[in-house]
């Protein structure tokens, strides 16, 4: 079963590797963006899906990663690739420091604390004008070369980032950490009683997740070549990421990625036809997912589609 899945995944990957040589710049960009979201969702899923901690403000690490790359490239003239480990490191350090006090909180409190952290960091970045340019934003060096080359470069950079994120997520799910996280998700008190060092594992999960999201931010900054606090600490990305995790299913490795592909490509193809109202459509779509597909598309319809399954959530969770 695993072999078959792996085989299919490799075919999928192979297609993605060859696609840039047949599709146009625009679709390259769409896919690059999709990989970005897929990687963010996969990374965030380690804390959200595996551990069951709704890190609503996880995009904070994205912004931090973006600014670390931005500042290192402009102020310290480092090469782009050399900055990425620092973006990851910044995420790890921040998550480790904040993890101890914040991960004691549960449910809504945790979700809100992460949002508060994101907003606080954004405001601080906004004020550190000397270092970050503040509201004026930060212009990164523009990559030299033919446009075709640059697009392929970022396409593959983001694809590699996504594959790494999936690999890390897969490994996490298979080692002791993964089992500990699952135990925490199911019943944290019981896990604690069983001798699992829950603060340690939770913090580790958050740090891994922060590292992945941070690297995504770093690549994004160089890709966009201009960042300001409001373009990288952006709340709507948090929501999109959450919707993707939910749609694809948060307890699996590839669920968030599939959710990202579905949502991003739908938005690209279908919503461009509903220009005036697509915001409303997005809102309704999210409501629809929560009402009918809270376990994710694939989990809900395992073994075939039926209307009965569509309404099972309403039956189970009605007051």
């Amino acid at each position, binding site marked *: 079963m695993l072999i078959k899945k792996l085989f299919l995944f490799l*075919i999928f990957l192979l297609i993605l590797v060859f696609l840039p040589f047949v599709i146009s710049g625009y*679709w390259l960009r769409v896919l690059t963006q999709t990989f970005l979201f897929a990687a963010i969702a996969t990374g965030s899923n380690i804390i959200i899906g595996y551990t069951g901690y709704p890190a609503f403000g996880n995009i904070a690490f994205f912004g931090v990663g973006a600014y670390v790359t931005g500042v290192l490239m402009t102020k310290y003239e480092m090469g782009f690739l050399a900055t990425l480990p620092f973006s990851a490191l910044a995420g790890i350090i921040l998550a480790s420091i904040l993890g101890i006090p914040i991960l004691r909180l549960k449910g809504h409190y945790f979700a809100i604390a992460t949002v508060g952290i994101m907003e606080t960091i954004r405001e601080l970045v906004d004020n550190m004008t000397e270092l970050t340019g503040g*509201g*004026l934003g930060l*212009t990164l060096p523009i990559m030299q070369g033919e446009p075709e080359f640059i697009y392929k470069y970022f396409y593959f950079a983001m694809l590699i980032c996504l594959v790494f994120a999936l690999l890390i997520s897969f490994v996490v799910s298979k080692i002791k950490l993964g089992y500990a996280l699952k135990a925490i998700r199911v019943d944290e008190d019981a896990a604690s009683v069983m001798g699992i060092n829950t603060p340690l594992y939770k913090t580790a999960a958050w740090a891994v997740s922060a590292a992945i999201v941070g690297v995504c931010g770093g690549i994004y900054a160089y890709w966009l070549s201009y960042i300001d606090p*409001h373009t990288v600490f952006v709340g709507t990305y948090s929501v999109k990421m959450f919707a993707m995790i939910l749609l694809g299913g948060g307890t699996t490795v590839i669920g968030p990625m599939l959710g990202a592909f579905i949502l991003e490509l739908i938005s690209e193809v279908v919503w*461009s036809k509903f*220009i005036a109202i697509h915001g409303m459509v997005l809102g309704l779509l999210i409501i629809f997912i929560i009402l009918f597909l809270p376990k994710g598309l694939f989990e809900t319809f395992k073994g075939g589609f039926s209307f009965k399954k569509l309404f099972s959530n309403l039956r189970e969770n009605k007051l």
Partner: protein
Amino acid sequence: MKKVVLAFLALLLLSYGAKAHADEIVFGAALSLTGKLAKEGNLVKSGYELWKEMVNKKGGIKIGNKKYKVNIKYYDDESDPNRGAKLVEKLITEDKIKLILGPYGSESVFATSAITEKYGALMVQGGAAADKLYTRGFKNLFGIYTVATEYMDDILEMLRNKSPKPATVAIIYSNDLFSAQVAQGAKKSAEKYGYNVVLYKDYPKGTQDLSTVIVEIKGKNPDIILGCGHFQDTIVIVKQSKDYKVNPKALAFSVGPALPDFVDSLKSDAENVLGAAQWTTTLKYKDPVFGSNTEFVKAYKAKYKEDPAYHAAGGAAAGVIFQRAIEKAGTKDDIAKIRTALSNYSEETLYGKIKFDQTGKVVGKGMAVIQIQNRSQRTVYPEAVAESKAVYPKPAWK
């Protein structure tokens, strides 16, 4: 998994480009039609549409002896610059359009012009004023907005000659790219004209309360207050200045008074507030397509049942300038020739006398100064085009 792969490929196949007819010229525009810049984006679009209608009514763009109809392909960037860049990419690579009309907003123009530059497509934009757009050595971007750092210059120049002569200025600004540059320029202009800047302070973008700043300003009692921010901040500053009885001799804003909503929102409190304006409905300029600015305003009112704002006029003017450059170049496909025509462009349009420097930004256009008098926007400076005299000093709040 297999199904996902198939569905994914099917989605990719769904994309196809629009085919251009032989006797039309297709322009592309990725604008903010939804999201936080929806208002301005739609205004710019109205300007493009009116221009298109007017040109097509007259037969089209004339190249040699043949006339080509104008067609514009739109996308919505949802007020997200990165999405805008993606869509301009789509316009260029999928729809094969190389004549791009700009979006609204400095961030969006910044991101999308990088794409047009890469592909050697042309962008004429009437929707962004950041100086930063023109310091990247781009060859294919032309902008008709007077840049941010020059925004407040004309107001300060006008006030310099009033009596009693104002001596002190307080400058407050929103912490974002555009407003910070306006403030930097305002400070420089103030120093140039010999004012004493007694307060220079930023506040967070989109703030909802400025009472502390207003109280601080009151303590300094400046002759002039310059607000460099956005519409909502401007409303808050006016309301709270009145609340706390702050009475400067002049109250001026970079953004706000020039928008029709300003008077609607503030009623009589809007009286005598000064504003910088890229353009106003009453400027007496000739125009090669509409005939004159007055004719443009008339046509706009007939179509949209409201007065045009400067965003809409900027959109129409960008279209006009693009059209005239194409006509002068005598080609619709040779981008290099059209670019040369734009570089050498010098003509009076509804937006003023337009001329570009080698970085592509408009030069010598300046800003009009407007003042709210009897609930309408009156141009008070430069004197050559002024409709009425500026009220100075501003009477105290009632």
